[in-house]
């Protein structure tokens, strides 16, 4: 009994969640209050948030391969399953970009789009900052690199997962492991560079007049953290189901350490961006925080305080990291507040000051949770969750801190 069963009850739950999401989508299309920008910006937000979770999990798995670390071997299947959402999320993000490009194109192009720099209509006021960026920010190039880079990410992740499943079926698993190690090394280097591009194209380009060299790293840390949190939650779920019996408090302690460390790194990156902007007060930089502090004040401060202080205070001691209850509660709160963080990446630049979290936003978020869970849990149910062959499995069994 090594298989995770995606029970009918759980399936029904994900269907209900997805159904809610579809209702919210229809509501968003029909309702007069919801502009096209708000409609698509929320889809982009959800897709990006969940894609980032997948990317974080895949990156973290690759890191374990390259670092040759033993402790995390037990939860390898969980990383792989979380990574399975990647292609779906990428397609949706691509769709949002295409819609923006089509609606904004031509002399009659509308400005009611997520990526305002794609707007080409006659009512457009000449924007020098965007015009200067046209070498990088032009529609064919952006779409092309999203496709190519996303495609390579999906390909490498699939290759690693396929080999990892194969490892369990053969006794001669060492060559496969070392192949995976090499793939992971390529993936890390490739991802480290291209993730920056995608962070600029998907998120930073929404505020097209603004740019920051730190933003890519900031998003990178966010991906990593949310990926680790979802891994922790799924691992605890599997243990409750009586699977992954070899994963004990020591493994959870290490995962909790990552949650703590990445939250602090997140706070570090966020605060230094904020402090330098506050100190230098350069107009074309300050607009970023001005839009957020003036019009999204509540989200902005709640998000910052919870994301930094909650893990800092609660996860500091050894005991909380070894306690599943604490990990679940803190992890869930952090996911919500990081979603709020994602909300203010996307919204101020696209829909501007008139934001509102209503039925559409929440329904869509719930729908995407259902979608994500459906994809991830089906992937988890396909192969045995307990891996059999791995050079470091012995080390992971005896992991002790």
């Amino acid at each position, binding site marked *: 009994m090594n298989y995770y069963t995606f029970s009918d009850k759980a399936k029904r739950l994900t269907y209900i969640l997805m159904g809610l999401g579809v209702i919210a989508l229809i509501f968003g299309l029909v309702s007069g209050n919801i502009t096209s920008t708000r409609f698509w910006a929320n889809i982009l937000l959800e897709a990006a948030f969940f894609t980032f979770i997948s990317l974080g999990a895949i990156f973290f798995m690759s890191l374990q391969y390259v670092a040759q670390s033993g402790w995390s071997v037990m939860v390898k299947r969980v990383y792989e399953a979380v990574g399975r959402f990647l292609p779906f999320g990428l397609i949706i993000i691509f769709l949002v970009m295409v819609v923006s490009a089509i609606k904004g194109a031509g002399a009659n192009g509308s400005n009611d789009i997520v990526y305002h720099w794609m707007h080409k209509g006659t009512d457009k006021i000449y924007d020098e900052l965007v015009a200067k960026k046209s070498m990088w920010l032009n529609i064919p190039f952006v779409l092309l690199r999203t496709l190519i880079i996303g495609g390579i990410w999906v390909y490498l992740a699939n290759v690693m997962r396929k080999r990892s499943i194969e490892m369990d079926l053969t006794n001669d698993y060492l060559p496969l492991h070392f192949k995976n190690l090499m793939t992971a090394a390529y993936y890390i280097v490739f991802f480290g560079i291209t993730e920056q591009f995608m962070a600029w194209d998907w998120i930073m380009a929404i505020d097209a007049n603004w740019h920051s060299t730190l933003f890519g790293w900031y998003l990178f840390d966010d991906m990593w953290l949310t990926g680790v949190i979802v891994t922790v939650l799924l691992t605890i779920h599997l243990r409750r189901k009586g699977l992954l019996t070899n994963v004990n408090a020591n493994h959870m302690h290490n995962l909790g350490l990552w949650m703590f460390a990445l939250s602090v790194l997140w706070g570090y990156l966020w605060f230094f961006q904020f*402090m330098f902007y506050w100190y*230098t007060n350069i107009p074309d930089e300050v607009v970023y925080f001005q839009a957020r502090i003036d019009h999204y004040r509540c989200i902005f401060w709640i998000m910052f305080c919870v994301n930094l202080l909650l893990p800092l205070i609660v996860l500091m001691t050894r005991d909380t990291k070894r306690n599943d209850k604490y990990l679940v509660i803190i992890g869930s709160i952090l996911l919500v507040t990081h979603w709020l963080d994602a909300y203010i990446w996307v919204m101020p630049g696209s829909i501007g000051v008139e934001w509102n979290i209503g039925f559409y936003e929440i329904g869509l978020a719930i729908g995407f949770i259902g979608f994500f869970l459906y994809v991830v849990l089906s992937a988890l149910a396909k192969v045995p969750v307990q891996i059999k062959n791995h050079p470091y499995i012995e080390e992971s069994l005896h992991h002790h801190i």
Partner: protein
Amino acid sequence: MSHTFVHALYDDDDRLKDGATKVRSLGHTIKDVFSPFPVHGIDKIMGIKRTRISICCFIYGCTGFSLAFWMISYMMVYDWPIDIGGKPNFTPYHNLPSWIPILFESTVLCSAHGMAITFLLRSWLLPGVSPKNPDPRTTDDHFLMVMPAYTDADIKAITGIAKETGAVEIKTVHA
């Protein structure tokens, strides 16, 4: 009151751990273990209480934070306010973002140095102090376990366990 110690010398850390486990399981105590490198898990086997250095760290950190806060608010708000880039600097609240790095660094400085000094003092690792290490081989490739013995029967029992678990040298020391 015992002034007799059994010194058991091992040449392998796993055998040392076996020996320590056995000694403890039969109700004897271990005073100390000397080893050339940290042996993972030996503290639990020896029954050492969890270190309180993290509490010290918290206290030192608070001290560092308060010192830095007092220093910088005295300098920047009370004594000699300087207009830097037009930033308001009449209250600590207005100045706070620019103070965070200093507060952080001072907290880390005080907690790290405080912990290191506490550790060195507590374990009496100071310049000029004569080593407590009973056997110089424990700085190279041997492990020494020191166990107090209260009666002759104890000495016999502990020596027996040490022999059984593969100690390479067993000595009884009257202190």
